[in-house]
């Protein structure tokens, strides 16, 4: 086939080229066969790149490097591709495999095209005795500056420019290192300063006190990058939705909405190298007219569907799901395939339980055939509400990140699709109509769940119609004490804290996890707001107008009774805190401040946190040792690090967030919720480090599993090996050199999943200082009683 491979840089596979030197590249998923003619197996970055370069040369691929495509015009059969150097290439068809890296934001100032301006720093030790200016105040810029100034012997004079006064966009740890380097005089930090002109050997700066010119031999600009979306849209390709996470719309042969232009690889939503390579193979086969070719994932899907009744083919099942399930109807066959790869299918017999109340789970289900029953009354199994074919369930767990609210069982023989949390979120982000449908259903169900049995969807139709989902940033007040608005709210995502102003200070009254409602007092008795409610973390609430809610209460006296009982209980707590405040003011302040401290340290989005009571901790580190010894010899907990308030210490250890930030960007989807609600990383991790960067609490470490140590008795009696706990870095390194290196993978607390007896850290603490808590139980007034007695 007549072809040309255009590459922007001077080497192929730039993303992999940029991995850190010697990185162990993983070849997941292992059950997928490699179709491509190039070889690929897990191994060192260098080996893989060398193999590819050799095989590309042998296969006589027509490669042109330093060919940055800036525009694609024309239509199928007659495209013209313009390159940055001005040349033009004609093609009948185009395959875009440009990844998701995008282009670095370029400096827009006079002299920005001089050769000493660069947008990447591969090896900071390369430069000596230079005046180097780093532009950009994010993590990348700071890390580069620190790298350049790390070794004083290099003699570089490093300056970093920040347009603003603070480094708000960077991680705390990086800012701290930078400030230290500044205090030592190793780096010059210029705040509220922007570059205005680049010249040979110097740079002109605009500072608060006017213009200044400093010597400068090299400029490293790290001002973020532009995702490739805009470029692709200019080629006439449509994306599935406006959402940032959306991918281009594709046919089963990877063709976009612009006929003749194809998209594959990370850009198409398949970030794993093996997928990328297979799609490269497939797309060329399709272009070559081989329309019979089945996608490489066909056997995986066939295996998934094997246990379903009716011996249908993969395509038939995909079509069944798409046509039956309402939220899947807009999807293309390719999207269906992708979705199903991240999903599971189940066939349930009549009366079989699908999930039960309080079971952790954040997946969403859709009914392809049959129907299910929801047990709405925990005390009576026979009170149920049916959900029919085509509809969904489990969406509350997905949205709120909390445990299942009720038990669901099959009403008849039922086939259901279970979308993993990630697959479901991707679906909602890319299919707007699915998103709307799920939103409506979830609001309706949440109301039914909270106000219990006896209600039908018809009873609340009006209320649901009037509902509105409101996003609330962390710390923002939803209800202000003393105000006389009359809306009622349900916490949909995140959590809230309720506070009352007592003696000029906000006093913490209670914590409201997702799934609770608030604001009912003012609606029911028409009073002013008696306390303020604000978001503990970034949250979403559903707002219902007070009148609509009142109308419901008028129609349903049962509901009014329930609401009144809840209200009385809440009043009681408020009164209790208030009375304590009068007699034990100090204790209440302490309780309030401790609650605020814990919320600030992630308890507000946690499901289960390790806390250390430093009034009891003797510093023996037995918790860390036990952690290491029950997990491949590496501790997932740093006891000393972390914040402390009033002797309550939050060590660096996973909070098992309701909506784990770490899950956001994991190429193999290796992070999931385990059977007991714990967030775990499984063995498909490829060690890319994304999760480590995404976790706001710094609890994930990247490390290689060390070889096993000699046993405890051997150590006790003969002093063999390093003893209990994590072996020193030197020991691990030495042993690894003997036993052969293993890949550095992401590790974190898994709450001792699968270990009978539960978390080893807590069990191994001799004094009872280490405790694990969930926010609802810990942020309750019970603590106040404890503290005062």
């Amino acid at each position, binding site marked *: 086939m007549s072809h040309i491979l255009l590459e922007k840089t001077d080497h192929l596979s730039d993303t992999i080229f940029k991995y850190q030197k010697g990185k162990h590249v993983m070849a997941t998923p292992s059950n997928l066969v490699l179709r491509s003619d190039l070889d690929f197996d897990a191994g060192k970055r260098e080996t893989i790149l060398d193999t590819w370069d050799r095989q590309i040369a042998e296969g006589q691929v027509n490669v042109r490097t330093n060919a940055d495509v800036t525009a694609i015009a024309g239509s199928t059969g007659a495209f013209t591709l313009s390159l940055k150097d001005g040349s033009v290439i004609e093609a009948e068809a185009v395959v875009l495999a440009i990844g998701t890296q995008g282009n670095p934001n370029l400096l827009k100032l006079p002299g920005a095209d001089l050769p000493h301006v660069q947008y990447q720093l591969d090896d900071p030790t390369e430069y000596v005795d230079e005046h180097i200016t780093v532009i950009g105040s994010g993590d990348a810029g700071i890390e580069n500056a620190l790298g350049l100034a790390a070794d004083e012997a290099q003699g570089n004079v490093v300056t970093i420019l920040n347009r603003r006064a603070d480094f708000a966009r960077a991680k705390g740890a990086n800012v701290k290192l930078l400030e230290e380097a500044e205090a030592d005089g190793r780096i010059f930090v210029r705040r509220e300063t922007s570059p205005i002109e680049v010249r040979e050997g110097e740079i002109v700066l605009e500072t608060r006190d006017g213009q200044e010119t400093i010597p400068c031999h090299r400029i490293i600009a790290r001002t973020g990058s532009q995702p490739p979306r805009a470029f692709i849209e200019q080629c006439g390709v449509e994306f599935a939705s406006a959402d940032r996470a959306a991918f281009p719309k594709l046919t089963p042969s990877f063709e976009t909405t612009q006929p003749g232009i194809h998209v594959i690889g990370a850009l198409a939503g398949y970030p794993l190298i093996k997928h990328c390579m297979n799609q490269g193979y497939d797309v060329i086969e399709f272009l070559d007219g081989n329309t019979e070719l089945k996608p490489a994932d066909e056997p995986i899907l066939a295996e998934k569907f094997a246990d379903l009744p009716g011996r249908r083919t993969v395509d038939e099942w995909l079509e069944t799901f798409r046509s039956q399930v309402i939220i899947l109807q807009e999807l293309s066959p390719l999207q269906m395939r992708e979705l199903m790869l991240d999903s599971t299918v189940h066939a349930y017999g009549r009366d079989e339980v699908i999930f039960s109340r309080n079971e952790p789970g954040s997946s969403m289900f859709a009914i392809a055939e049959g129907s299910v029953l929801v047990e709405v009354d925990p005390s009576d199994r026979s009170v149920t509400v049916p959900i029919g074919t085509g509809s969904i369930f489990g969406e509350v767990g997905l949205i709120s990140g909390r445990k299942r609210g009720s038990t669901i069982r099959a009403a008849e023989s039922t086939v259901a699709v279970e979308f993993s949390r990630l697959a479901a979120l991707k679906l909602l982000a890319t299919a707007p109509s699915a998103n709307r449908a799920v939103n409506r259903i979830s609001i309706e169900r949440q109301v039914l769940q909270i106000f219990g049995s006896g209600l039908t969807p018809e009873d609340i139709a009006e209320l649901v119609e009037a509902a509105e989902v409101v996003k609330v940033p962390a710390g923002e007040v939803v209800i202000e004490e003393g105000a006389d608005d009359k809306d009622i709210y349900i916490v949909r995502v995140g959590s809230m804290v309720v506070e009352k102003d007592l003696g000029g200070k906000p006093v913490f009254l209670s914590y409201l996890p997702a799934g609770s409602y608030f604001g009912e007092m003012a609606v029911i008795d028409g009073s002013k707001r008696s306390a303020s409610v604000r978001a503990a973390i970034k949250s979403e609430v559903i707002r219902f107008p007070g009148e609509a809610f009142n109308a419901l209460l008028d129609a349903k006296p049962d509901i009014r009774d329930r609401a009144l009982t809840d209200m009385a209980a809440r009043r009681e707590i408020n009164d209790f805190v208030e009375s304590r405040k009068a007699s034990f003011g100090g204790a209440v302040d302490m309780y309030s401040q401790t609650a605020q401290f814990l919320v600030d340290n992630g308890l507000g989005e946690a499901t289960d946190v390790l806390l250390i009571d*430093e009034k009891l901790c003797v510093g023996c580190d037995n918790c860390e040792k036990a952690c290491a010894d029950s997990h491949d010899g590496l501790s997932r907990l740093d006891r000393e690090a972390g914040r*402390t308030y009033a002797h309550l210490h939050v060590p660096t250890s996973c909070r098992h967030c309701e909506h784990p930030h770490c899950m956001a960007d994991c190429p193999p989807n290796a992070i999931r919720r385990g059977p007991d609600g714990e967030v775990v990383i499984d063995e498909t991790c490829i060690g890319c480090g994304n999760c480590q960067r995404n976790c706001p609490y710094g609890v994930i470490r990247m490390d290689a599993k060390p070889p096993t140590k000699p046993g405890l008795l051997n150590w006790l009696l003969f002093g063999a090996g390093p003893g209990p706990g994590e072996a020193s870095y030197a020991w691990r390194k030495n042993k690894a050199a003997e036993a052969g290196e293993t890949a550095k993978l992401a590790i974190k607390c898994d709450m001792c999943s699968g270990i009978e007896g539960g978390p080893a850290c807590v069990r191994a*603490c001799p004094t009872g200082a280490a405790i694990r808590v969930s926010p609802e139980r810990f942020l309750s007034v019970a603590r106040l009683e404890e503290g005062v007695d």
Partner: protein
Amino acid sequence: MATLSPRDRDAGYAEIEQRRSASHESFLAHRAYFWARVAGFASLFVIITYLLVDVEPRHNGGSWYGYTLGTIGAGLIVWLAWLGIRKRRPTPGSWSLKAWTSAHVYLGLSLVIVGTLHTGFQLGWNVHTLAWVLMMLVIISGAYGITVYASLPQRLSENRREMTREQMIESLATIDKQLEAAAQPLTREDADMVIAALEQDVFASGIRARFAGAGRSDATRRALEHISTGRAYDDDPDDLAQRKVRALLGKRAAQIDQIRRQMQTKALLEIWLYIHVPLTIALLAALTAHIVSVFYYW
């Protein structure tokens, strides 16, 4: 799980919750002083029976009553010593070291009664009494242990001010680097004092150093005194440099104090284990000798 009824599954999840979360209670108060009560009643029971049971000619280790107490005591000692293994073996199972320590402390204390009444107060210069003395020493060191476990952690926490050990050492290194640069413009004599401070190994190891604690006089404090005593606070450039050094020396002294206080508190929390554990091993040896000799001379 599939075979369980839904109701059981509900209960199962509640149980998981229960199991996972240790209640917020210290080892001494564990389960509302359960082991204190057990040990107290057991001791009381032993004292009463000791007074009621009539052994001829008088209470001693060799009577049936003495044997009973001896067997219980020896069993207890072996079990108490097993804590050293339990602590280092994070095996699966629903044990908690807190519960073990709680039982260890109170049952260990009850040994005072059990062990002593076992002897029938027949002490002398022999291997039998050696075992009793060692036992008492282990118990006394244990008693010291729980007093420090109860009183010192708070001090450790307050002194730490959220810093980890590495951060304290790093912070000292940072101050040192700044001092080195700041001392450049000083006079020869002053600079020598600063260099002496920097060169002194502040944590010269050794047991004495670990216990010495904060506020000790050392090269840093001497340099601080030297540079600050009787100096005028003029605004000349010389004095500005001195002021900077003075401030840094003050910071350095405070940082050293924090580290020393940390080392001292940790040492106080650990030192007794260096008596408790070796004496336990000696006790186990003496106990074996005691038992062997008793049966040998029977």
